[in-house]
């Protein structure tokens, strides 16, 4: 039995916003794979729930006429994996969604919950950082669109105002068209495990050079991060083996991993440099490029 005091089912996003405004102590529950674990652990913060589980309004993946991709926050990882739109345009998210938990978890857990939970190890976060994703946040005063990099305020803390709900994740055409990505998860097990390090790369190439490069990590700091130093260092770099070495050499300046029971800081740094190379190589392969 969960220590729930109040549970109110919201029939729409609008209703959920009103319910959150009326009950300032209430928290949202969608897939429940994080919230119910916290309740099981006896965390009092989730005693009052506004339930958006299975809300049709938040579910679905579509491509708008201007080619912007819109992923409803209530979309489950299984739906993301099976989506033709995601497989065709942003397979990096297929990689990431497939690496989450096990089938039972992926069938229920939502991509919006993964982001709003605010943890650095969220498998969908770093790929969305590398895709310059915009978050649609709907609140009592309307909707705002926030770059995902500005959403994370600290471990478990995200930029959601009173009554605000993450309704969708938007990927703009300039960020995914002609771009190729890869998500590399390093964990102790291949299933049912939290990332020791998650590495996401999104790149564009032209005429033998790297024209756009976006590198993001999970668990390389208190929140998911973009590696601006490494990105700056290799933009325009010719597609030679030296490219990978340059990325590995500069990425350490961008990251700040810590020692935990899962892994030491030193081990994480080693994985970060290695994954930055491997994920870049995989993304280049997807782009049909070879280093020479």
């Amino acid at each position: 039995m969960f220590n729930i005091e109040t549970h109110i089912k919201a029939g729409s996003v609008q209703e959920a916003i009103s319910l959150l405004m009326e009950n300032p102590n209430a928290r949202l529950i969608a897939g429940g794979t994080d919230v119910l674990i916290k309740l099981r652990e006896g965390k009092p913060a989730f005693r009052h729930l506004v339930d958006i589980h299975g809300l049709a309004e938040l579910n679905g993946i579509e491509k708008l006429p201007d080619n912007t991709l819109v992923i409803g926050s209530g979309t489950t990882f299984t739906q993301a994996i099976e989506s033709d739109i995601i497989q065709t345009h942003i397979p990096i998210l297929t990689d990431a969604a497939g690496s989450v938990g096990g089938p039972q978890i992926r069938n229920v857990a939502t991509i919006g919950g993964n982001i709003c939970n605010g943890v650095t190890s969220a498998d969908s976060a770093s790929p969305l950082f590398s895709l310059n994703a915009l978050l649609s946040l709907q609140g009592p005063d309307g909707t705002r669109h926030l770059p995902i990099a500005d959403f994370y305020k600290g471990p478990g803390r995200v930029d959601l105002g009173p009554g605000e709900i993450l309704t969708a994740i938007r990927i703009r055409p300039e960020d995914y068209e002609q771009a190729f990505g890869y998500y590399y998860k390093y964990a102790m097990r291949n299933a049912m495990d939290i990332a020791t390090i998650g590495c996401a790369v999104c790149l564009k190439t032209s005429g033998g050079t790297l024209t756009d490069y976006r590198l993001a990590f999970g668990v390389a700091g208190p929140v998911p991060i973009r590696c601006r130093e490494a990105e700056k260092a290799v933009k325009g770099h010719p597609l030679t083996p030296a490219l990978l070495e340059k990325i590995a050499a500069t990425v350490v300046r961008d990251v700040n991993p810590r020692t935990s029971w899962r892994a030491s800081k030193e081990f994480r740094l080693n994985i970060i440099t290695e994954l930055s190379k491997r994920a870049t190589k995989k993304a280049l392969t997807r782009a049909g490029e070879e280093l020479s």
Partner: protein
Amino acid sequence: MTDQVLKQITFTINGVKRSLAIDIRKSLAEVLRQDLGLTGLKQGCGVGECGACSIMVDDVLVDSCIFLAVWADNAAIRTVEGEARDGKLSKVQQAYVDEGAVQCGYCTPGFIMATTAFVEQCEGKTVSDDEIRKAHAGNLCRCTGYQHIFNAVEKSMTPDDPMPGQDDHPNQES
């Protein structure tokens, strides 16, 4: 218990429509086991890691220990109890028996549902060994070492003999 924690929900359980007042604080695993006596599913870890509580909700495999019972309203639930028909085990269940994929049995009801969901999803498709393993990665077994379970899944996926019985044990019949 006050009225506030009770909610009337209606759902189909193994093909039978039920309506009952449930405690909103309960997981679906707790309602199925405690209120309906369906003790096939087990609560192992209670946090969605072991899969012993796996059931199907509208044909989707879920861990019922981290699934609120209120979410079952208007859904069709399948548990291991509903898989055998007229005293005959389902093909998946029979495969588990035939392959010795059951030892202590604690994980078995969850595994049976994971395999059943997988077999139904993959009907008519060719699947790789990796896909079989990935589809069962959310279920833990501490006895069998998984190979027997893997064999049972493979057996569950082989097409039925079109003329059952005809070529069975020809030597014994003569």
